[in-house]
């Protein structure tokens, strides 16, 4: 099997190109996805290839164009809607919560909304408090939608293609720091499994559960734990935030009996708390130590570099959370 070296950004673009080329119902719609090439240059060049009907620049009307995506999905299309950042997506929450997530149920199963919405999430670029929060846990709260967080180049391409095969709305959260990430992946674009979490590094002493932009930090922490502390950390990449693959997380806990959940979102009411509760409910007897959480500090994201770094999870904080446990 031949492989190709792509960045995460190019991988998303490859999936978009593949979908646009192979399915007439697919179109991309969002702010500056056309001539500008997308705020993160993901759709660069696609306007020239597919024209303005299918690579459709939308005005700054998040609720309007996310809602139009829902309507177009009802009308037989396969829209991919790009929202610049997760903070901006809040302007469309009415359409997401009240329509995309409810229409199937509320219509007694008559409607389905095969819509894909992509957006950048996460901190680390000094964009301050209105551009780079990690609010994907809010989306993961909503029955009726699926929430994906690709952390690797392969998943960036494959999860988008998988999302396009789903009959229901799928939200994809792309951590903005991952776009330049490079990797060698299969040349042939194809959908990947989105039902399961992935064990990215095997270990037997502690499980680090994470997703998206924090995967790299956890892998770095696992390397440090091995080299400096002689501890074998297993790293579980959630990949799909809703529905959660609790089975894979529990299987890892059964091996390690210790868990740290690493999540850029705020700790209170967040995804890490949800996973921790599930471990308590379903894996209480497996636990040798209370589940620990390394989350975003509960502040609006600050601008200054040193403050921003301190507000985000880091490999050091993950290592510290593990080494504080008794083994």
């Amino acid at each position, binding site marked *: 099997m031949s492989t190709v070296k792509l960045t995460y950004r190019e991988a998303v673009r490859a999936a978009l190109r593949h979908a646009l080329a192979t399915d007439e119902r697919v*179109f991309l719609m969002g702010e500056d996805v056309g001539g500008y090439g997308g705020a993160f240059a993901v759709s660069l060049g696609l306007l020239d290839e597919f024209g303005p*009907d299918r690579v459709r620049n*939308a*005005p700054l*009307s998040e*609720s*309007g*164009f*996310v*809602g*139009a*995506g*829902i*309507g*177009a*999905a*009802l*009308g*037989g*299309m396969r*829209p991919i809607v790009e929202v610049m950042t997760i903070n901006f997506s809040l302007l469309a929450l*009415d*359409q997401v919560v*009240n*329509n995309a997530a409810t*229409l*199937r*149920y*509320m*219509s*007694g*199963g*008559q*409607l*389905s909304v095969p819509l894909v919405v992509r957006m950048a999430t996460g901190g680390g670029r000094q964009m301050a408090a209105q551009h780079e929060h990690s609010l994907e846990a809010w989306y993961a709260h909503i*029955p*009726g939608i*699926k929430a994906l967080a690709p952390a690797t180049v392969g998943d960036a391409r494959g999860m988008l293609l998988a999302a396009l095969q789903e*009959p*229901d709305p799928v939200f994809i959260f792309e951590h903005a720091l991952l776009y330049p990430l490079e990797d060698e992946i299969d040349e042939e674009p194809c959908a990947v499994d989105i039902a399961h979490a992935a064990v990215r590094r095997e270990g037997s002493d502690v499980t680090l559960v994470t997703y998206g932009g924090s995967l790299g930090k956890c892998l770095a922490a696992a390397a440090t734990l091995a080299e400096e502390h002689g501890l074998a950390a297993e790293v579980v990449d959630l990949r799909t935030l809703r529905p959660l693959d609790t089975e894979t997380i529990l299987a890892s806990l059964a091996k390690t009996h210790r868990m740290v959940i690493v999540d850029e979102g705020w700790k209170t009411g967040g995804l890490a708390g949800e996973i921790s509760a599930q471990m308590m409910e379903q894996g209480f007897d497996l636990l040798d130590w209370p589940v620990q959480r390394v989350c975003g500090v509960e502040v609006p994201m600050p601008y200054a570099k040193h403050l921003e770094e301190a507000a985000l999870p880091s490999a050091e904080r993950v290592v510290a959370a593990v080494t504080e446990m008794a083994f």
Partner: protein
Amino acid sequence: MSPPAGQPATRKRPPRQPALEREHSLHLLREMLRVRRFEERAAEQYSLTRIRGFLHLYIGEEAVGVGVMQALTPDDAIVATYREHGQALARGLPAASLMSEMFGKATGCSRGRGGSMHFFDISRRFYGGNAIVGGGLPIAVGLALADRLQGRRRVTACFFGDGAVAEGEFHESLNLAALWQLPVLFLCENNEYAMGTSIRDELAQPDIHLRAESYGMPAEEVDGMDVIAVETAARRAAEAVRADPGPRFLELHTYRFRAHSMADPDLYRAKGEVEHWKERDPIALFEERLRKAKLLSDDDLAAIESDIAAELDQAIATAEAAPIEPLEDLTKDVYTLVAG
């Protein structure tokens, strides 16, 4: 018995000031009366606690839903609001399925998951029943976008109230539809009140059609208490959308005779104002017009009323006897069940 919406026979009528023709006129009268009697029976069933939740009645506004529906074909789509019983009936959704829905039964048009505010019928392209004011407009834009991208010449009719005009989604949607020249027929049912607040206290510019014009789309004011005026304007607008895709906008002046919902004590409207509007009752006005034109006899009216009463008795009996959704289906249809 209600004929399906947008029959070919009526579509061929000339678009401007159609002469009253007996069969079609009686159809319009029957449809408006069906809506009114349906709503009266719904209120009665609410008082008997068989219907719960919110119940918003369409009484007073019948000419709008019934008139507009004459201009639509079965291929056209409808997006409506939480006050959608009139549109649903006029579109041909069976009264029994609507009553069953409000009774919370499995045979309801939304399997008892929606209730009064959320009627759906995909086979009739009836896309709700949207209870977020303004929330249906972007969906209508999207349905029209899908038609445009797939080269289909059909209309998406989007009903909303004057209250929606203050919402951002109204402006976003009008802008998108005009910018992309999408085949949406925007239908503002201006009944003067956003729940309990007069539009004069709500909108800096209460001439709503001017807002649409500012987006570069043809807009018209219509007497929403005159079913013929509504039908005529709706036909003209729908045909325009079909011929030259691009949005059109109708502001339909109407009034609800009842409170906002069954939960509303209606403290904010002067009695005189309500009485004044009742003098323009769309059904009474049309009846009078038909009698003057010698198109309606007492016998005709009695026959219509008796047909409707029988239909509604049957609808209520059907709803009462209908099964409820089994509890094991509580979480069914949150997601589509994928085979394999």
